[in-house]
């Protein structure tokens, strides 16, 4: 049975329209006067001088994790580019120098203009090599090709900026245990 939606009948004052307009005008004038005389109470932020705090688990620009020797931890398994709904990840596999590991990415490129920041690549990665926790959200460039970021860009990050989140990554395959890694990386 079809559901009947009953719309409330308008009262005479509502039909006359003018009293309702006066009510609305009162509301906006109240906001105006409040903002004019107590500007410090307005819910605004002086961006970009005062940037907002972005939580660590906010999905922002990607970074590639590194092994202690500076190589990318990525094993070029293509899981991320397969999971990617936007098809923005291009990986070319090369041979790894480490005997325990089969492959490494010869090329790892993300087109940030195509990326939809869904986080599925980070979810799919079996070795925790790709993360989206850089908190870089204001991406700007003057040319489209500059939005295609490669290995160099993705691995250009400082461990000191991620003091609380590196614990797990150092236990990942191919990595060293946490304390040892910190010693090698010089962040004790």
């Amino acid at each position, binding site marked *: 049975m079809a559901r009947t939606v009953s719309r409330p009948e308008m009262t005479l004052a509502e039909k006359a329209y*003018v009293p309702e307009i006066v009510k609305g005008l009162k509301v906006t004038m109240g*906001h105006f006067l409040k903002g004019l005389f107590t*500007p410090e109470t307005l819910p605004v932020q002086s961006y970009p001088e005062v940037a907002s705090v972005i939580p660590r688990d906010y999905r922002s620009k990607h970074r590639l994790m590194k092994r202690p020797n500076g190589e990318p931890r990525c094993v070029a398994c293509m899981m991320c580019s397969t999971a990617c709904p936007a098809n923005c990840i291009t990986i070319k596999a090369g041979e790894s120098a480490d005997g325990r590991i089969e492959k490494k990415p010869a090329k790892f490129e993300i087109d940030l203009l195509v990326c939809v920041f869904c986080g599925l690549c980070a979810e799919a990665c079996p070795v925790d090599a790709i993360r989206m926790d850089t908190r870089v959200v204001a991406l700007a460039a003057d040319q489209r090709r500059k939005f295609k970021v490669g290995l160099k860009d993705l691995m250009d990050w400082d461990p000191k900026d991620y003091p609380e989140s590196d614990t797990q990554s150092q236990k990942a395959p191919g990595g060293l245990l946490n304390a040892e890694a910190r010693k090698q990386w010089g962040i004790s």
Partner: protein
Amino acid sequence: MIDFDLPFWLSCAKFALVFIPLCLIPICIFLERKGASLMQDRYGPNRANIPLLGGFRFFGFVQNLPDGIKLFTKENFIPRGAHTFWYLLAPMIPLAVALLTPSVIPWFGPMVVEGARGLTSVSGQILDADAGVLVLFALSGLSVYGVVLGAWASNSKYALLGGMRASAQMISYEVSMGLSAAGIFLVVGSFSLTQIVEWQAAHTWGIVVQPVGFVLFLTSLFAETGRAPFDMSEGESEIVAGYFVEYSAIRFGLYYMGEYAHIAIAGALVSTLFLGGYQIPFMDTEAVRANLGLVSGAIVAAIALTALGIAWMVRRWARIYARLSAKDAADRKREYGVLNILFTLAGIGMLAVAVALVVLVQPAKIAVAGIDVWPLWVNLGTAVVQVGTLLVKILAICWVFVWVRWTLPRFRYDQVMALGWKIMLNVALVNLLVTAVVAKLVKG
């Protein structure tokens, strides 16, 4: 050598009044932006500044400057298939109309001055026609030609739809606008705007005798200026931007400025018909002239208090320092400090000027050819006071335009038509009928 004929040169000088709506455009835009932002609980434009003046931002007023530069320097794009001549001509019409209309608005009371041909009355209108208000309505209705012509010449269906909506809306609301204003003509018994204002000075404001007419007239003006809630001609969600969708750079800017000039003109029209025009409340022109010292002193004192109020507001806005970065807070502290001192000094100075005006200005009539008339300086001083009064009223109406725009949601197109034809036209007709009967009974 031409004889120096004072009335002639005064009439020439009156042409400067034509530029008042143009000067009001940046103020209207500032009002609109700040009104909109504060009603939406935000600060509005406050980044543009003048580096040469120490990075002062003047609470966002400077934003007009980069906007103007941007509009003037962008590319003037003409779309393929556009009718070039009409396309280039159309945006000029609204602004040309906005420049013409002030010529029939009475800016000050008629003054009697001595000229080469004896005593001559100089009107406060540039064009003192008996049919003044009809000229005003005709010019006001003309501005829609710019919209329709530009829409048609753009060779774009969205623009054409917007133009057709604008013309339909104009036809619908022009009718109730004329009929709602007709009530005040019946009461006054004249089409001359100066006489309407003088009648209001002698009796009472038009809004008191024609409250329904006032509301109808104001609503029709909202529709005629094409602003929300009647912005059918530029419905973003339905027809992109409406009639000016193909326009860029300063040609778009002409439409934009034309809209705000139209608001200023509308404000002048409403004030003249319903709010006593250039008259100071409870004082007719003669009373202002006789007490010029007191009146001008009171006005300067009011301005001084406004300046002190602005200084107080500047100090109040200093509370937002805490939200800024350190460098920004230091910059604002410097700007607000200077503004605070400037406005405080201006306020105190003007209070002194006010006292001096009250004490020193003692107008007295002089006899010319056996008739007592006011000396020229009294007439001119009164004219300045009255133009200022009208400006205050215009700005108040402009504020109402902004206020209503940011309060009411848009109408649907059929609702606009229904409101125009089924409600406002009928109410205007009944109002006119009742006014006619009452006016006949009272006046006989």
